[in-house]
């Protein structure tokens, strides 16, 4: 048997035969069919799929927030069956604590892990600077725009320097203009930090623009339907979205959704 959905380079996240079945009153509801996926170190992988295809479930499994029904996930050789240190998560909403300043929200990550906050002050400052939050570090989240709140939440996910960044539709609540700007910034941050990124998104252009590979999932129960290698040169300007290769890729990916008969957006 050939290695399924293999990545180029050192495998950092290895998913094998992963399934998830929810128990409900009416019986077992399968959410994920066996999933096999390898993600290389420093690779940016985006997952697109219709609502209810289990892509958020997959992310929570990788994060160790949900127990798998069967199969295994290994990150850097370590079996994930509970949350591990080497991960940072960005949720769809920024989930910032309103009683903490931006800076203290970012440092929450190390505080909750019981580490010495002072040791991470510099890391927090660097992130604040690279993410364009300088001058706002002492503001409260509710004084910030949605895009800036999400930036703070990305900083929080990175401050303890994990090797893996998991993102669950992080820009879904932003307006189209802000979203594009955030995409460009995320690419830059990824370039600077070289994290292994798993991004869940509804937006096909966002996935193609950002990712090295785009995983297309089908729904109920979720399964990997196709994987596209995005061979656009890097770094990518936002103008890449007008290039024929980009358009071709998004069209090819979109066809899966038309075939399935439902498209979210």
């Amino acid at each position, binding site marked *: 048997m050939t290695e399924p959905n293999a990545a180029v380079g050192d495998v950092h996240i290895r998913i094998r035969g992963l399934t998830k079945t929810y128990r409900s009153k009416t019986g077992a509801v399968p959410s994920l069919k066996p999933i096999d996926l390898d993600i290389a170190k420093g690779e940016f992988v985006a997952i697109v799929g219709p609502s209810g295809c289990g892509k958020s479930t997959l992310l929570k499994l990788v994060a160790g927030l949900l127990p798998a029904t069967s199969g295994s996930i290994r990150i850097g050789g370590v079996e994930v069956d509970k949350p*591990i240190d080497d991960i940072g998560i960005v949720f769809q909403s920024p989930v910032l604590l309103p009683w903490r300043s931006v800076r203290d929200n970012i440092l929450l990550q190390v*505080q909750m892990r019981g580490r010495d906050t002072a040791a991470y002050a510099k890391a927090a400052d660097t992130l604040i600077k690279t993410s364009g939050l300088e001058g706002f570090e002492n503001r409260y989240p509710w004084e910030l725009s949605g895009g800036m709140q999400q930036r703070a939440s990305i900083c929080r996910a990175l401050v303890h320097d994990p090797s893996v960044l998991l993102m669950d539709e992080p820009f879904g609540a932003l307006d189209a203009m802000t979203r594009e700007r955030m995409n460009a910034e995320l690419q830059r941050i990824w370039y600077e930090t070289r994290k292994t990124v798993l991004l869940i998104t509804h937006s096909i252009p966002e996935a193609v623009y950002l990712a090295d590979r785009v995983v297309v999932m089908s729904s109920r129960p979720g399964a990997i339907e196709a994987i596209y290698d995005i061979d656009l040169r890097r770094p990518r300007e936002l103008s890449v979205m007008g290039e024929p290769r980009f358009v071709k890729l998004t069209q090819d990916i979109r066809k899966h959704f038309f075939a399935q008969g439902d498209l979210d957006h």
Partner: protein
Amino acid sequence: MPIIRSLRRLAGSEAIRPALLIVIILVGWDVGVRLFKIPPYLIPAPTAVVLELFAQWPMLLRETMPTLYATLGGFALSALFGIPTAMLIASSRTVESYLYPILVFSQSVPKIAVAPLFVVWFGFGIAPKVISAFLLGFFPVVVATVLGLKSIDNDMLDLARSMRAGALRTFLRIRLPNALPSIFGGLKVSITLAVVGAVVGEFVGSNSGIGYVLQIANGNFDLPLMFAALFILSLMGVLLFTAIDFAERLLIPWHASHRGDFVGTN
């Protein structure tokens, strides 16, 4: 006209509005009593109440103290027991299913009916008044705190779990601060009800306190004194409520209800 403009500005400021309304009501009351020749044993004129307030001031102040102590004692017990009880209820479905229905049931028992029992059990001292204030003040604290502790975003809890934080750390750093606005809401209701509870306690068996003054005045058809005592009680409730409101502003300036003035002070 500058005078009219400054008067209008005065009327527009928020602090003056309730005072303005009270003045209007007092004038209406006074005019009404005079116009319809209502006898003072039915409704006293506000002037009579004010005169009584001045004449009886030392006595009223003296009698306010036991009521204030009973109120504060009952309120302190409400917070002291109410918040941990709510934490228990919010932390476990099992505890909730045992405890909550009994709490609701106990709340439906009219306190005025059981108050005499406390006199039998605890005598004529301050204890039955404190307990009566506690019984009225306890429930709102529990309900509000349970609501506050349960109103937490699932993502927030996932975030805490992803940071591998233990239950205690999650509670202290996330759940509790998140519940504070709701807890303060409960405390505000609680303190005003504690005043009522203390007076109920004084009604059924006491020889001191504003509740006692009220009963004596009622027995003597001394309506001006009765209204004066009622005024003192209301004033006490307002001041205590304001004190908690002030504490709330200090402790949770980040909450949406305070943001206007908070940003203004920046």
